């Protein structure tokens, strides 16, 4: 019996030796002619950098690296996080490169779902300062860059200059008081029933609007330096009172409570609102004849702010940055290719080819003659990009966000008094397990 097992063991060892020899030979061959590589990339189905744009980028990359094929999976935003989470928990990554929203940065860093890219950036990105610091900040936590910036989305302040002229205003508001006055006059003169429309649906967009409004009152950070929630004081409380007041006084369309960003943009583009605070895609919609009734009337502007606040930028926006990250469980052999793809997709040369789709992350591309020609508002864009506030970079962000969404929504609708909602929000966040 023992002899039999010894024979089996010997045969197995010989077979493994043969296989090892064969694989060494294969590796040597790979250096001469690279083996085919399939890189699985998880991206989001969205406007701007759409599936068509990404597929084109993938094809261009394949042209440069014929042995590498990019296999995209496109998912709607609400499904992205759970897809990344399940892929991260799998023994081998289902996705090698994932789109990482800045709100997941803290969680991904804490749980190690994606790898820090500092070494790659140090080695391969010659001019990291070419990307605004506000963008790096959004995708970094504790000095670790968790995703390479890919999409520099942020909000702009939009107003209808024709409506404002009818109301007797030559320009848009610079301060919150001016903005309130303009809304009141527009309503009183029946130029528009609801001067403002925003995306206050109980979803992530509401948190963005809340943070931005707090920013307009001087501080869009919902947590202090010690990591404690501060929604029940200062600018964050003023923001909540402001949002409730706009709703109560009929200055904001009541539909805002059920509106997402595209719905709010449509209201503005169809002439049902004089003001809209929204992501950069509105610039394209408002001047597109097939989608807009206000072609030539929309103005992109910096945000009004409370006097004496935001002195450096004279605006206060909110970031919606997205980066490309390498999953931690991506096989080691694929990681260099994953980085190569990231470096390619985020490079100034590639971003310059897609200026119609998105605002570029590179300052050199953002100020290029091409961009200036395409986007007459490029200076305002830069102003708002430099004025962004980030949503809290906490490891349990999604839980924190759902609490904020719930209480802010209820406070605006008047189900709970503002002060109570703010206190309850803080109390509930503080009671979360650390």
């Amino acid at each position, binding site marked *: 019996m023992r002899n039999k097992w010894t024979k089996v063991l010997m045969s197995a060892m010989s077979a493994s030796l043969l296989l090892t020899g064969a694989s060494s030979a294969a590796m040597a061959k790979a250096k001469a002619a690279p083996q085919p590589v399939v890189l699985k990339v998880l991206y989001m189905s969205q406007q701007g950098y759409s599936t068509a744009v990404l597929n084109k980028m993938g094809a261009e990359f394949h042209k440069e690296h014929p042995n590498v094929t990019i296999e995209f999976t496109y998912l709607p935003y609400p499904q992205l*996080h*759970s897809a990344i*989470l399940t892929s*991260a*928990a*799998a*023994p081998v990554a289902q996705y090698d490169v994932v789109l990482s929203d800045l709100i997941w940065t803290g*969680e991904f860093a804490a*749980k*190690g*779902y994606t790898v820090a890219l500092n070494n790659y950036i140090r080695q391969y990105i010659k001019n990291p300062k070419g990307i605004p610091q506000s963008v790096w900040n959004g995708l970094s936590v504790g000095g670790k860059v968790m995703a390479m910036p890919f999409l520099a989305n942020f909000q702009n302040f939009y107003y209808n200059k024709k409506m404002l002229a009818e109301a007797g205003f030559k320009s848009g508001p610079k301060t919150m008081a001016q903005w309130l006055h303009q809304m009141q006059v527009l309503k009183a003169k029946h130029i528009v029933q609801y001067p403002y429309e925003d995306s206050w*649906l*109980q*979803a992530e967009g509401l948190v963005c609007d809340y943070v931005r409004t707090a920013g307009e009152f001087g501080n869009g950070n919902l947590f202090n330096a010690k990591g404690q929630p501060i929604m029940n004081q200062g600018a964050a409380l003023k923001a909540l009172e402001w949002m409730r007041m706009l709703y109560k006084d009929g200055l904001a*369309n*009541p*539909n805002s*409570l*059920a*509106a997402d960003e595209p*719905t709010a943009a*449509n*209201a503005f583009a169809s002439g*049902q609102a004089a003001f809209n605070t929204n992501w950069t895609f509105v610039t394209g919609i408002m001047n597109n004849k097939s989608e807009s009734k206000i072609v030539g009337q929309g103005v992109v502007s910096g945000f009004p702010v409370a006097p004496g606040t935001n002195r450096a930028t004279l605006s206060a926006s909110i970031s919606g940055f997205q980066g490309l990250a390498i*999953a*931690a*469980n991506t096989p080691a052999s694929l990681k260099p290719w994953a980085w190569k793809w990231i470096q390619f997709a985020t490079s100034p040369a590639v971003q310059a080819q897609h200026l119609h789709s998105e605002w570029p992350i590179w300052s050199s591309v953002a100020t290029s003659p091409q961009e200036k020609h395409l986007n007459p508002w490029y200076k305002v864009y830069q102003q708002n990009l430099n004025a962004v506030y980030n949503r809290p970079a906490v490891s*349990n962000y*999604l*839980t924190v966000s*759902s609490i904020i*969404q*719930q209480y802010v*929504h*209820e406070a605006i*609708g008047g*189900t709970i008094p503002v002060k109570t909602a703010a206190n309850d929000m803080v109390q509930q966040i503080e009671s979360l397990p650390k």
Partner: protein
Amino acid sequence: MRLSKLERKSAIAGYAMLSPAMLVIALVTIFPIGYSIWMSMNTINSTFTGFQFTFSGFTNYNIVFQSSLFWQALWFTTMYAAVTVIIELVLGLLVALALNQPIRGRGLAIAVMLIPWTLITVISAQMWGYIYNGIYGVLNYLLMSIHIINAPFLWLGSPVSATISMMMADIWKTTPFVTMILLAGLQLIPSELYEAAKIDGSSAWNSFWHVTFPLLRPSLGLAALFRILQAFGLFDLPFVLTGGGPGTSTMSIAMVAYKAIFNDGAFGPGTAVAVLTVALVILLAVGSLKALRTQVGEIDT
């Protein structure tokens, strides 16, 4: 009783033929349920190296039972299931009675009626979202056109209106399913019974109450069973239509489990909610089946 050799062989062959199906069922049903029960009794940390389990007994269940959101979602799901199932049974019965008559175009009517049922819930929920939209929603447009309302109404903006709106979408989609079950039940009732009732001078109402209804009870029970079980798994409609809001007013227990697992990364409590839901559904199913058997037994007698 001892089996003969031939019977034993045939039994073995039977089990052998059944085994692939049993294996599939074990893999896709029994294993996940068992694994979920195991997960619900552990504290789970998720990192890039996978899940790390630490046995914690019933701690997760304790967390769930102390959560006001769980109790609120349980109440909402129960209330939602009761209201929608009752309305669907009444409407389904009325439509089935109408379709049971020898009318022209009956086949076409059945085919058209089935369209809502064939739609994927996510799609129909999205469609209802557009209908209810406060700015460009068809419902507001229609109601304003006929002067029932003066200004757009925010259908999904308050807990009560959002719940009612969601129920309407559900009833629209699922009533055809109930109708089909009841129609099948109606067609099994022998026409002689109606003829005998007619000869006895029974009115239409009496025929319905003393002939149709008792004989249709098993079908009603079956339809109610299916619908209650489905209603307790309510997820896609609120997920798409209301996101569980406003606040947490339309959050079902399935949504609570999803939120705990995928939003909060609380795998233990999340799976505990899922296990409790399964237990509840099994209890309801067993109870309903027992009641159904009693009804069928009564009728057979």
